[in-house]
């Protein structure tokens, strides 16, 4: 079928580097597939799954899975060790849970200090404020449990076993974010080490969320942001989990051509600003496409021309070859922001009338997305169609 790519037979997906990972409850394996749907590898699960995985995530070290269980959900943490994928932790969220999506908040700083064996105080290049007592910092050769944090000083529960160099890669996770549709929508901030809820945020905003991911986004915003991205209908929202406000919202094309039916997204991953959405159908260039398998559809965090809105003032002119109408093209990107300095080219259907500034460029200074030109009337009385086309040239 057209546009098929990874052909997953289970509705969960995590993208790591160039590979697509799927928990398969039929064969009890974590399957690693290529973009062309070939199985590059498979890791048998050390503990069989008792239910299908409805959502999955990856934090740089661990894979996370979520299953539906009686009265709620179960979230499991797994790690690839050698040739198998082994269960490390199970957290049950019952009763009053009905979730289809969760994310693991995770960070990847580097060591800011040299660490010698036995050392109990360390600091990181960044994200020290994200660490709290109980967090485990993972280095390539060992895990370090945090006892306390004071400013940039992190005190460990026990001294490191090995020596480490400045700049050594670190990974840690600090919170689970679970979207719960049980009662009109809640977002739960959970300590992933204990499973206890830290904060519950209520709002229909968090109802019926089927796809989310926590990731660092380096394009699309003035500076890099770590955001909880979640998909509400056709809007992908970037939540600042510190301030609990949105960095921004972008629209995606998960809509059938009837412009009514929203296409469900079963999984969401971001790699190098490519957004991979797992879907069983898609809208490709104005045609509905459906599959018997689950495949990824791409979006990008990079700002791209998304819409152009066009109007004329006045819209009715005397056909005297003299009067003009102001043409306003409003060009927005997927975040709903005006795009800067993009050419808008015009055509019209009158043999005498013409567009005076062609192409006109969108506003360079204020980000309004406006491109302004003028149409000078012809001499025949009829309806003139003026068409504006904007080009993404970069």
């Amino acid at each position, binding site marked *: 079928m057209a*546009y098929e790519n990874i052909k997953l037979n289970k509705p969960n997906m995590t993208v790591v580097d160039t590979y697509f990972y799927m928990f398969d409850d039929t064969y009890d394996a974590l399957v690693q597939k290529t973009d062309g749907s070939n199985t590059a590898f498979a890791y048998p699960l050390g503990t069989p799954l008792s239910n299908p995985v409805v959502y999955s995530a990856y934090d740089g070290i661990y894979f996370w899975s979520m299953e539906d269980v009686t009265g709620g959900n179960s979230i499991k943490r797994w790690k690839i060790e050698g040739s198998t994928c082994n269960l490390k932790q199970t957290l049950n969220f019952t009763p009053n849970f009905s979730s289809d999506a969760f994310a693991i908040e995770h960070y990847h700083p580097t060591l800011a200090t040299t660490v010698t064996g036995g050392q109990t105080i360390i600091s990181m290049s960044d994200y020290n404020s994200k660490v709290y007592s109980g967090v485990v910092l993972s280095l390539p050769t060992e895990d370090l449990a945090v006892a306390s944090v004071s400013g940039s000083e992190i005190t460990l529960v026990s001294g490191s076993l090995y020596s480490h160099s400045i700049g050594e890669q670190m990974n840690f996770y600090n919170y689970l974010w679970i979207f719960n549709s049980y009662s009109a929508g809640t977002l739960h901030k959970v300590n992933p080490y204990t499973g206890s809820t830290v904060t519950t945020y209520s709002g229909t905003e968090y109802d019926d969320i089927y796809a989310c991911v926590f990731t660092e986004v380096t394009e699309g915003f003035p500076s890099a942001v770590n955001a909880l991205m979640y998909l509400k209908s056709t809007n992908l929202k970037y939540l600042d989990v510190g301030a609990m406000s949105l960095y921004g919202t972008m629209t995606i094309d998960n809509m059938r051509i009837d412009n009514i039916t929203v296409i469900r997204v079963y999984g969401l991953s971001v790699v190098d600003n*490519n957004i991979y959405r797992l879907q069983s159908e898609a809208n490709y260039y104005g045609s509905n496409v459906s599959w018997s398998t689950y495949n990824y559809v791409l979006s990008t965090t990079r700002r791209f021309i998304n819409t152009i809105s066009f109007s004329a003032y006045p819209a009715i002119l005397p056909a005297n070859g003299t009067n003009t109408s102001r043409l306003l093209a409003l060009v927005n990107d997927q975040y709903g922001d005006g795009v800067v300095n993009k050419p808008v080219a015009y055509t019209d259907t009158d043999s005498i009338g013409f567009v005076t500034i062609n192409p006109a460029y969108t506003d360079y200074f204020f980000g309004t997305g406006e491109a302004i030109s003028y149409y000078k009337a012809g001499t025949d009385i009829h309806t003139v169609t003026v068409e504006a086309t904007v080009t993404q040239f970069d």
Partner: protein
Amino acid sequence: MAENIKLNITNQPNFAVYQGYFYTFDYVQDSLLQKTDDGNTAFSYPFDTLLTVAVDNAEYDGVYFWSLEDPGGGNNMTIRRWKIDNYICKLQQSFAFTSSVSHDYDSRAFAVEHYHDTLASGISAGGSDVYLTTYSGSSKLSFTTTSGAPLTIHLGPNSSGQEEDVYVSTVITGGVTTTSGTTYSYAPGDPAHFYTYIWMFNNFDGKDSATGALYKLDAYTGALVTKYPSGAYKDIGASTFYRVNSFTSYGNVDTLCFIKGTNTLFINVTASGSTLPYYGSMVMKNILSDTTTVIPVKDLAMDSQNVYRLQRAPDAGSSLTQWGYYSYVLSTLDHFVTSISLAAYPATIAANTISTAGITAMVKDQFLLPIPSRLVNFSDDDTTGTIVTTPVSTDSNGKAMTTYRSGNTAREVKITAVVEQT
């Protein structure tokens, strides 16, 4: 791959491979059949003890054939040891694993830990010192059964076709001293075989069917030595024990191999501890053309570097029962290009003939190890878009990178990367 050995799905769902022949226990014909690659029966060895159910799994240890049967009527299994002797396949020993208060047994795969060696020096009749080429000094020679009996080494056949069992008394430098002198003489290079444990993949961990367990059983007494619980050991249909040299950091290793889904995993059975580590894992192509349905492997055998999988459908076949019989499908233990994964960063660019995307191809072998120094050819299906550089050689990480420059039509562009095993 075309049908080949055509084993009957009811009577012969098992095989062992040895020197180009395919052996299968046929419980209807009550014979061990020796078949050629094209399915013809080259020979048959009638059983001296009749089978009552089909054999689920077969193994060959160089001397003995072993069979795994499910007698039905509960969670019980039977493992038998057979030997071809004077044109008859004679039962040597039976182990009945019956349901008890501590264990249930439901298995479709097992393997016999066995070792093939040769004599490092000749033995005169009556001699009791056996010097081995490969396993001299190995702790395996110190094996004792759960009843305290020593290891049995099968010597021969010698140039006269004579063979015998000898029993280890003490381990000496370069070999062993046996409990009594040999009956026959043997020359350097004559075969010497021995086996130690049965490894049975049980769908029960004791009485618990939630997870599976690997049972380590004394191959001489059938007694349980220990078991290793893991979901990875559940629902296993094919396994074997073989000496493999595919893992560079380990060299030659004697390993328990089993198939889980699409992968063959190689267990280090010599490790201590409550879990057994893996030497590695190897992906195979036992998936239907829909790229999602895994083709079950009924039995597994290895000979030289060939991996023989007993299946009812070819790799990338149309259905799980495409074949009316079981035939073998091949994999190899030699490192081969197996997968190429492709990604574009950014994956969405402007159709302006100027914008570019970095294209990365990762080339891995069946062990998921990177394959360096292979040329990757990139192509695209856009008439105006172009691949800037092709072919590109993979680096030490198996990565080949190039650049795609966009065309002038907004569309999904398909970029294809092809790598060849050279």
